């Protein structure tokens, strides 16, 4: 008697993280954004090997030269190679984006967690301080902080990080308020877990997803903010390369050396666009309504 054999597909149980990554991988925009971000990160890391010239090397015989085979992106007002400066400039932008968001996360998450978990007077106090910080427009607060701290890339990162902190406080607080009434948190409390353990082991891991999305979008905002502060002369100081400070110089030569402005601006645009695409994709992948 003939027997029929079926190869039944084996369904492997995927973790929520794996399911999220699968959903993310299906989003072409997010993947494109991720690819460009990786490209920029590689460019920043391997800048010494990728850049054709020293970004600080001046050449009086090659002042404001249009793009040629020798200088693909042309040269600037003192003969420096624009391509080399764009490649090195990626370091300042990515560093500013990552460091300032790390500052915001390391300040905002614990404060938001405390406000949401403890509640009452602590929550009221933190919420009012957050409202006060949010009332000051992001860039204006960053400019004021950078002005009082003094102009430098480090101070710009601190200023951007502090200015973006209230968004993370508010987001963490809102998430904690929603999670802390869940049954599993009640159960953890009922079996006698201490508050710190409940907050860190049972609540924090469940509020991470929206924080990742916000962090990705905040990197995009921080890259623009660093470029803005450097454009105003409050970020990376010359002669160190930064896309914002390159644009500041370029605006004075726009009529006879437009290439000086095109490439650094395009780099900021591409990097910010990529982080925004990635952030949008992450939000869609993490949104339960999309499942």
């Amino acid at each position, binding site marked *: 008697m003939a027997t029929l054999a079926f190869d039944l597909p084996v369904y492997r149980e995927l973790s929520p993280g794996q399911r999220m990554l699968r959903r993310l991988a299906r989003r072409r925009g997010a993947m494109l954004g991720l690819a460009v971000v990786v490209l920029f990160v590689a460019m920043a890391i391997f800048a010494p090997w990728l850049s054709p010239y020293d970004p600080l090397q001046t050449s009086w015989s090659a002042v404001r030269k249009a793009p040629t085979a020798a200088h693909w992106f042309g040269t600037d007002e003192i003969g420096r190679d624009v391509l080399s400066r764009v490649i090195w400039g990626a370091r300042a932008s990515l560093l500013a984006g990552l460091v300032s968001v790390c500052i915001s996360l390391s300040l905002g998450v614990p404060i938001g967690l405390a406000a949401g978990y403890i509640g009452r007077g602590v929550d009221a106090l933190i919420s009012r301080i957050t409202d006060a910080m949010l009332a000051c427009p992001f860039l204006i607060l960053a400019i004021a902080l950078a002005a009082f701290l003094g102009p430098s890339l480090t101070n710009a990162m601190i200023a951007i990080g502090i200015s973006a902190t209230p968004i993370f406080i508010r987001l963490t607080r809102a998430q904690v308020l929603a999670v802390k009434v869940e049954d599993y948190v009640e159960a953890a409390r009922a079996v006698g877990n201490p508050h710190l353990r409940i907050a860190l082991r049972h609540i924090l891991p469940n509020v991470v997803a929206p924080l990742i999305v916000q962090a990705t979008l905040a990197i*995009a905002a921080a890259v623009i903010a660093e470029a803005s502060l450097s*454009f105003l002369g409050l970020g990376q100081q010359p002669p160190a390369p930064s896309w914002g400070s390159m644009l500041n110089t370029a605006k004075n030569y726009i*009529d006879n050396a437009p290439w000086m402005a095109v490439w*650094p*601006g395009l780099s900021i645009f591409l990097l*910010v666009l990529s982080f925004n695409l990635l952030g949008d994709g992450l939000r869609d992948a993490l949104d339960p309504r999309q499942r």
Partner: protein
Amino acid sequence: MSNYLIQRLATIVPTLFFVSILIFGLQQLLPGDPAMILAGEERDPTVVAHLREKLHLDQPLPMRYLYWAGGVLKGDLGESQRIQKPVLELILEKLPVTLELACLAILIAVAIGVTAGVVSAVFRDSVWDYAANVFALWGLSTPNFWLGIMLILLFSVTLGWLPASGYVSPFEDLKANLAAMIMPAFVLGNAIAAVLMRHTRSAMLQVLDSDYVRTARAKGLDERVVVLKHALRNALTPVITLGALEFGTLLSGAVLTEQVFTIPGFGKLIVDAVFNRDYAVVQGVVLFTATAYITLNLLADIAYFLVNPRLRD
């Protein structure tokens, strides 16, 4: 109604208090003796002594805050060290220029953003929707100072149609004023248009799915009437409130735009103050913008409350 107003007003008092502490605290970030730093590079002993007395630097910190806050409540935001003018006077002098820029930017943002949002929602998942979303991403990702430089390159340097910089008062020459303001207003409005487009799209999608829109369609009304009269009118209410939150983006953007186009407004005032180490002006501008932001949000909340009958019940 009055209960809501009292509650809403009560929340802004502590917020303003913390704003004042934050801005007063900025001064404490200055390394060393504030009087020496505030006196500028000359460090004239008479100026240093005058500042020490004026800022009450011999007093403990809480007392200094009380003196400062007392002055602010009376409208004294300090005096510019560089220009020797009261800060409030300087702000009020520059404000009309920035207000004109901001109003033009909002007009452009609403015209582009709301239209794109409506088109995107009505033709959901079409090429129009796709194009509107690309536009929103473009607006959110373009640094406005770069966009400004590129527009100068195109319209001033290459085509010669518009002036690259400068400001002419509308009372002197309206045509020249509009020619000078159109590019900066577009630059400033571009990012806000992107935000408005996203808000309008999501509000319209929600409204277009609702029962009363289905009823309006079932009655045989023209689709244009359904969209513009029935749906858009309701969708715009949350958009207006969310739009008020963009005031901060507008002012932040104005700082950079005014710098690119050399417009003597509010934004240029703070940047010049930073480079002249005119810290009282920096503090004054931040305080003024924060207070304006809080007031505007209060007004938006009240307006939302007034136009939404469900909240009044």
